[in-house]
């Protein structure tokens, strides 16, 4: 056990953990800004822009608001970053080396919720009325999208005949069936909401809440939040690739699938206005909920009668 610790540390801190994921994540956040710029017919930022942003935030003063819960205020970004780090390390190891343990899909679900919970904790610890409104919206949003996401994964598990480990699930291309396609589309929208992209950036809402949940964060703590968000931009599409699109069986095909999901997210982001929170809840619970119940039924029937495309 002891002699394997350096190996584990290397996995978590360098490859495919912290350094690798942060690099890919910052490049991905540049892709987001660049493609948004191209959609709006402008040039957009240089490749090094996200790196300079992080460097600048690390060099600035960190202000702690008076009346805030200091311990929680400092701990929340670290909790979020740790959760995303674990999630991305686990997913990369599954993608590259096909390690598997039974039920890792459930571990992934829990690790994906943690950053949102940390965001709720951190913003409610920051003693600001704007952050309080942002907190309440983020909570409602988490309640709204967790149920459809879980149902979409139920479809995956049914389609794979009850398999609960991602390395096995990644062998199959679930998306080429009616129920799999429905589940994939809904899961894509849930990922959009998890990343806080428009139309689901209700909790941050720059124009009305002035940054919402992150309003009181500055300097190094804000840099940690930005890093965590950049790493989410790697981990969540990667999860979709593994669960729905057949994983990294061929390396370039896996990368193409990741870029495809990223571009889909960016295009949804750039062609939609922000929803109100009640519209978002209705969207996720009523429309996505019914679509997924249909998908679960179809998947069950397809599995029972052995019809692959259902």
């Amino acid at each position, binding site marked *: 056990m002891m002699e394997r610790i350096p190996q584990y540390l290397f996995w978590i801190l360098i490859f495919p953990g912290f350094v690798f994921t942060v690099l890919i994540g910052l490049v991905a956040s540049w892709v987001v800004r660049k493609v948004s710029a191209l959609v709006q*017919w402008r040039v957009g*930022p240089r490749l090094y822009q996200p790196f300079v942003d992080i460097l600048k935030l690390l060099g600035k003063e960190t202000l702690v608001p008076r009346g805030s819960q200091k311990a929680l205020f400092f701990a929340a970004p670290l909790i979020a970053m740790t959760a995303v780090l674990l999630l991305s390390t686990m997913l990369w190891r599954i993608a590259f080396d096909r390690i598997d343990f039974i039920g890792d899909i459930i571990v992934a679900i829990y690790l994906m919720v943690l950053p949102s919970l940390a965001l709720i904790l951190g913003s409610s610890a920051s003693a600001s009325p704007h952050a309080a409104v942002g907190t309440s919206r983020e909570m409602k949003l988490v309640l709204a999208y967790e149920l459809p996401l879980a149902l979409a994964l139920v479809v995956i598990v049914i389609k794979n005949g009850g398999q609960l480990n991602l390395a096995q699930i990644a062998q199959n291309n679930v998306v080429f069936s009616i129920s799999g396609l429905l589940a994939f589309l809904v899961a894509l929208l849930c990922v959009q909401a998890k990343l806080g992209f428009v139309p689901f950036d209700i909790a941050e809402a720059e124009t009305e809440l002035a940054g919402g949940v992150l309003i009181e964060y500055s*300097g190094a703590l804000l840099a940690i939040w930005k890093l965590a968000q950049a790493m989410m931009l790697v981990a969540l599409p990667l999860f979709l690739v593994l669960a729905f699109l057949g994983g990294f069986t061929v390396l370039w095909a896996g990368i193409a699938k990741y870029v495809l999901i990223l571009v889909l997210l960016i295009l949804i982001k750039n062609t939609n206005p922000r929803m109100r929170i009640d519209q978002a809840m209705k969207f996720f619970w009523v429309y996505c909920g019914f679509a997924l119940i249909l998908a679960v039924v179809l998947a069950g029937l397809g599995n029972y009668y052995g019809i692959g495309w259902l």
Partner: protein
Amino acid sequence: MSWKIWALKKSPWVFHVNTGACNNCDIEIVALLTPKFDVERFGIKLVGSPRHADALLVTGGVTAQAAPRLREVYRQMPKPCVVFCIGACACDKGIFANSYHMVGPVDKIIREIDPNAIIAYVPGCPPKPEAIISGVVKALSAL
């Protein structure tokens, strides 16, 4: 030049405060942030909270009501940061030079709480977006 200043120059996030302007400079600032001028090329981004900001764009020659708010916003910004006075009013009160209700100009109010503040001036009534970009670039390269 320290790496902190270098990074600040490459990615100045701006926060916009109106301290009693006639709204004309504000319209020019909004025009500056549209896709036509594309200031994201220089890493400039409008942020919603002074805690995230590196540069404060102030328009208007501070009214008696706005002065305490301007001081508060400046205190809320993490240092190092830069203040830009946009327009004639913000630079030296403009046509409101002898008004009873103007306690500015902006640099006087800011220097009351921070004598070493970095302040840049972009005159004009209103300054065109090109003039604002030119002023910001000159000020940042002098940093």
